[in-house]
C-alpha cells in the first residue's frame, strides 16, 4: 500500500475513534448522570476484577496474620470490631428514635429489625478522575442494594448514596463531597435549613442560607433533615468551619464532612429508612 494511503488509513481510524467518543460524550451531557448501557457494561465487567484483586491481596495479608500472629487474639479483636461497628450505627440512630419515647419492648424489637437492615461493605476503589466524587464498594444487587440507598461510614456519619451502575456484587457511591450531590440538612441548634452540596475538593457548602439568617455559627453540627425524601433525618453530616458574607444574597457556609476519605474502608448501607422501623 502506498505511504500516503497508509497515513490516510491511520488518520481515518483516529477520526473514527474521536467521532465515536464525541458522540458518546454528547449523548450524555443533556441527560446528566444517566448512565448508558455501554458504561454500565464496562463497569460491570471491570469492577469484579477490581474486587477480585483486592480480595486476593487481603487474603494474602490475612494468611500472614492468621498463621504468624496470635490467632485467638486476632479473632477476638475482629469479633469485637464487628460488634462495635454495628453498635455505633445503632447508637446514632437510636438517639433520634428515643426522642419519640417508645416503650423499651418496642425499641428492642426495632433494634433487631434495624440490625437486619444495615449491610456492611468495604470500599474497593475511588473515582478515577476525582476521588472526592465517588467510591466503589464490594456489595451489589445480589446483596439487595438498590439506587439511592444511604451509605454511612464506620462512625455513623453520612458518606453518600448508592447510584447507578449497580452491578451484581459491586456498586458506586456518590460522596457528599461531589459537586453534583445535594443533601437536605439543618443546623443542630437552631435548625436552620439548607441544601448541602460538595465542592469536589473535600469540603461541602451549605447553600440557600440567606444573608439575613441568624442562629448559625461556626463549629455547629450539621445533620440531615429528612426533607429531601432520600436521606433519613438525624444523620451526622459535618461541622461548619467558616461563614462568610459576600455580595450575593446568600451566605457562604463551608462545612467539613465528618467522614474521612483517607480512612474510608468499611461502610454501612441502610437498606430501609430507620424511621419506618421506629
Amino acid at each position, binding site marked *: 500500500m502506498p505511504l500516503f494511503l497508509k497515513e490516510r488509513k491511520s488518520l481515518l481510524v483516529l477520526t473514527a475513534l474521536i467521532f465515536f467518543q464525541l458522540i458518546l460524550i454528547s449523548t450524555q451531557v443533556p441527560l446528566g*448522570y444517566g448512565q448508558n448501557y455501554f458504561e454500565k457494561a*464496562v463497569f460491570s465487567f471491570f469492577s469484579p476484577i*477490581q474486587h477480585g*484483586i483486592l480480595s486476593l491481596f487481603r487474603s494474602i495479608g490475612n494468611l500472614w496474620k492468621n498463621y504468624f500472629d496470635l490467632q485467638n487474639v486476632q479473632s477476638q479483636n475482629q469479633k469485637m470490631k464487628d460488634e462495635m461497628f454495628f453498635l455505633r450505627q445503632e447508637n446514632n440512630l437510636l438517639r433520634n428514635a428515643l426522642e419519640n419515647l417508645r416503650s423499651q419492648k418496642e425499641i428492642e424489637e426495632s433494634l433487631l429489625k434495624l440490625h437486619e437492615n444495615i449491610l456492611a461493605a468495604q470500599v474497593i476503589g475511588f473515582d478515577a478522575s476525582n*476521588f472526592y466524587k465517588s467510591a466503589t464498594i464490594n456489595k451489589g444487587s445480589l446483596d439487595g442494594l438498590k439506587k439511592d440507598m444511604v451509605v454511612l461510614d464506620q462512625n455513623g456519619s453520612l458518606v453518600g448514596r448508592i447510584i447507578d451502575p449497580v452491578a451484581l456484587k459491586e456498586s458506586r457511591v*456518590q460522596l457528599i463531597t461531589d459537586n453534583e450531590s445535594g443533601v437536605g440538612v439543618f443546623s443542630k441548634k437552631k435548625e436552620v435549613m439548607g441544601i448541602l452540596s460538595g465542592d*469536589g475538593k473535600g469540603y461541602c457548602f451549605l447553600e440557600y442560607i440567606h444573608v439575613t439568617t441568624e442562629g448559625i455559627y461556626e463549629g455547629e453540627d450539621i445533620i440531615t433533615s429528612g426533607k429531601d425524601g432520600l436521606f433519613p433525618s438525624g444523620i451526622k453530616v459535618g461541622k461548619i468551619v467558616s461563614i462568610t458574607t459576600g455580595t450575593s444574597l446568600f451566605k457562604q457556609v463551608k462545612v467539613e464532612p465528618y467522614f474521612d476519605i483517607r480512612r474510608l474502608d468499611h461502610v454501612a448501607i441502610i437498606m430501609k429508612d430507620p424511621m419506618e422501623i421506629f
Partner: protein
Amino acid sequence: MKDFIKVSLGIIIAFLLYTVLNKISPSLVLLFNVFSLVVIYFAVEKNEIFGACLGAFCGLIQDSFSLGVFGVAGLAKTIAGFTAGYIAKKIDVNPPLRSFVFIFLLISFEFILWALLYSFIFSGSINTGRGLIFFQPLGTALVGSFLFFFLRKFKRSEP
C-alpha cells in the same frame, strides 16, 4: 495471538497497579498514570493505530470508574496514543533519557487535553489533589522510562 496476550497482560497489570495504588491512597493514582504507560508502550512497539485503539479502550475503562461523562479520558488517551505511535515512527525513543522526555511530554499533553475537556464539559476546575496531579508527568515518566528500559532489555535477551 501473541500480541493479544501481551496487550491483555499489560492491561491487567496496569489495572492491578491502579487498584492497589487506589486502595493504598487515592492520591497515588494522581501521581502515576499506569494506563497511559501501557498505551504509550504499545503505541511505540506497534504503531499509531494500535496506540489510538488501545488509548480509547484504556480511557473508557478509566471513565467507567469515574462519576461524570463517559468518554472524556477515552478521548484524551486516544489522541495521546495516536501521537505516541506517530512520533515513535519518526524518531527513536528507545534510549532511556529520550524515553523519559518522550513520556513526560506525552503525559503532559494528555493531562492538558483531559483538563481542558473536563473544564469545558463540567464548567469547573479539576481536583488537583493539593497540587499532586501536576507531578503526574514527572512521576509517570520516571517509572515509565525505567520500566521500558528493563522491558526492552528483557526482550533483547530473549532467544
